[in-house]
């Protein structure tokens, strides 16, 4: 199977807050093809989670959403709550940053896996149990049979995240959304979990969205990257192109802020000064302008729109980084 599996069209999410309306997602367009991986990158608070909740139709009750989310030919905004719930367990799965968000603390690992499987697939108890054991083994949990009787709190953070992945994979979803699945974990466990996701994705020909604040995490593991800032997608390109010809100053700044392995100790890091803007007080100009070292002229008065440079490379900037400059 190929072709577009998910498309988000002109999504806008508004959240009422005591400080006024907060636009968490601002006119976002995205598409993910079957079997492909999209990375969504940006600092904390820039709208990554709200965008993933838009796709999952799991926004806070008070949120106002406009736009369209098409998944496998269906308009998710038009589905009944019942149909949506079925879809989420079955074809559209999610792994959150904190595995305890997806796991139930009072149920054993086995109960959670078996119930999920039986709810969505027509399997008997023995078969569902067998499948649970296979899944736990597939995600690298030693002694999977014994684990079925354990509770989430009896496992380490890395093990819990593996279990959450096993639950997410249990019904062979077509799309898996992993929202900062490794941010809370050690680097070695992070590498293992990312390898695990990549392996399972290939095996199952599943599409995946990996959300992270670390460009290092998406570099070798995604087909396309969308960079978000203040609720908008500000640059989007196939991964190799993005790293070769970064055009958006924000993307460049995110990359520069990572510690470099080849730099001598005590080399100051080019940090991005300040913080993302308060989204209840939208700026008139480019949202990145107060922190951007290239800001000039219209940047402070006008919003750059997302435009295509090459057919697949989009960015929103008045003074893009010149092609060929090393990032």
């Amino acid at each position, binding site marked *: 199977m190929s072709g577009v599996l998910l498309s988000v069209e002109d999504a806008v999410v508004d959240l009422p807050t005591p400080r006024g309306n907060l636009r968490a997602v601002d006119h976002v367009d995205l598409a993910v093809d079957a079997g492909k991986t999209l990375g969504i990158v940006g600092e904390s608070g820039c709208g990554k989670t709200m965008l993933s909740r838009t796709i999952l139709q799991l926004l806070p009750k008070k949120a106002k959403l406009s736009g369209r989310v098409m998944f496998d030919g269906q308009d998710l905004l038009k589905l009944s709550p019942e149909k949506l719930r079925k879809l989420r367990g079955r074809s559209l799965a999610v792994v959150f940053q904190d595995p305890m968000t997806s796991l139930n603390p009072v149920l054993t690992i086995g109960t959670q896996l078996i119930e999920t499987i039986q709810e969505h697939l027509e399997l008997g108890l023995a078969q569902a149990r067998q499948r649970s054991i296979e899944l736990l083994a597939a995600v690298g949990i*030693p002694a999977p049979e014994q684990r079925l009787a354990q509770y989430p709190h009896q496992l380490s953070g890395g093990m819990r995240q593996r279990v959450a992945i096993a639950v997410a994979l249990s019904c062979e979803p077509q799309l898996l959304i992993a929202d900062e699945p490794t941010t809370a974990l050690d680097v*070695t466990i992070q590498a293992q979990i990312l390898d695990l996701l990549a392996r399972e994705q290939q095996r199952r020909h599943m599409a995946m969205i990996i959300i992270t604040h670390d460009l290092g995490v998406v570099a070798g593991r995604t087909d396309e990257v969308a960079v978000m800032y203040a609720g908008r997608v500000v640059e989007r390109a196939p991964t190799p192109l993005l790293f070769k010809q970064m055009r958006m100053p924000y993307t460049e700044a995110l990359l520069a*802020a990572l510690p470099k392995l080849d730099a001598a100790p005590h080399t100051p890091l080019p940090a*991005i000064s300040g913080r993302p803007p308060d989204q209840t007080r939208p700026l008139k100009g480019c949202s990145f302008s107060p922190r951007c070292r290239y800001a000039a002229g219209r940047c402070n008065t006008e919003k750059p729109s997302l435009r295509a440079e090459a057919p697949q490379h989009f960015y929103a900037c008045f003074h893009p980084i010149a092609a060929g400059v090393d990032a």
Partner: protein
Amino acid sequence: MMQQVSSDPLLKVENLVVEYSVGGKTIHAVSDVSLEIARGETLGLVGESGCGKSTLGRAVLQLRQAVSGTVLFDGHDLAAMQGDSLRKMRRRVQLIFQDPIASLNPRRRIGDIVAEPLVISGVKDPNKRKQIVSDVLSAVGLDPALVSGRLPHEFSGGQCQRICIARALVLNPEFIICDEPVSALDVSIRAQILNLLEEMKTRYGLTLLFIAHDLAVVKAVSDRVAVMYLGRLCEVGPSEQLFATPAHPYTALLIEAIPVPDPDIRPTQSIPVGEPPSPIAPPSGCRFRTRCPRADARCASEVPELRMVAPRQFAACHHPLI
């Protein structure tokens, strides 16, 4: 074997053993660790979650009693000190925690939080306290007039970490243990805080023990790096040397696990699956052997001693990579 770094180190930890007892079982959190930190040096300490990094830090500060071993700070045995002299010594050593928000009292104002160590250590003049607090807040990049009267929940994680750093600096210490100060922060704020720590180090003439699980972060700020696994020290050496030529298989594994922002470098899939074994019953011989690609029979029977593998570089391995 001792990795002597100077004839007069600021901190010298010798054969430190720290254990916890849980439900009648012993957790071997720190087992026979020795290290030194020279004056003005930053020693990075890395290892996976649960390997004993924080326990080591707490034992150095005497916040946790060691089973055996010694901690010499500026030549003084901290465990043997009591009362006034211990309090005086404590002022010279401070701690910064991983979770900046949780480590600030939610009901107290920032000005009072930062002033608290001054109150405890007996600075009575409120104007003097105010001046010192205002100086350190400015030093960490916060506007004292704007922040002093506010509560912690009004600040982001990065700003809370700045406040914690200010609080640690307020007594003008010589040595700060930074326990994963940036693990909870995202890439851009992490860079700001790392730069700030470096600046403060120069400005206040500090010596640092910098704890983290991310070797790339540790390398950015450390002169030397010590690698820990399941309570034991695996390797210690100058940062660049350790990166270029790791001797211990575990150090090599940690280096390989760092995500590289280059799409041409496909992540290798060679990291052994699994997590460290339980510190209640650590493996015999080398504790890393259950995940080590080079393990053999000797590794199961004999504990590898830390020995020199290159100038200033020491590793505890029977079959080092160099």
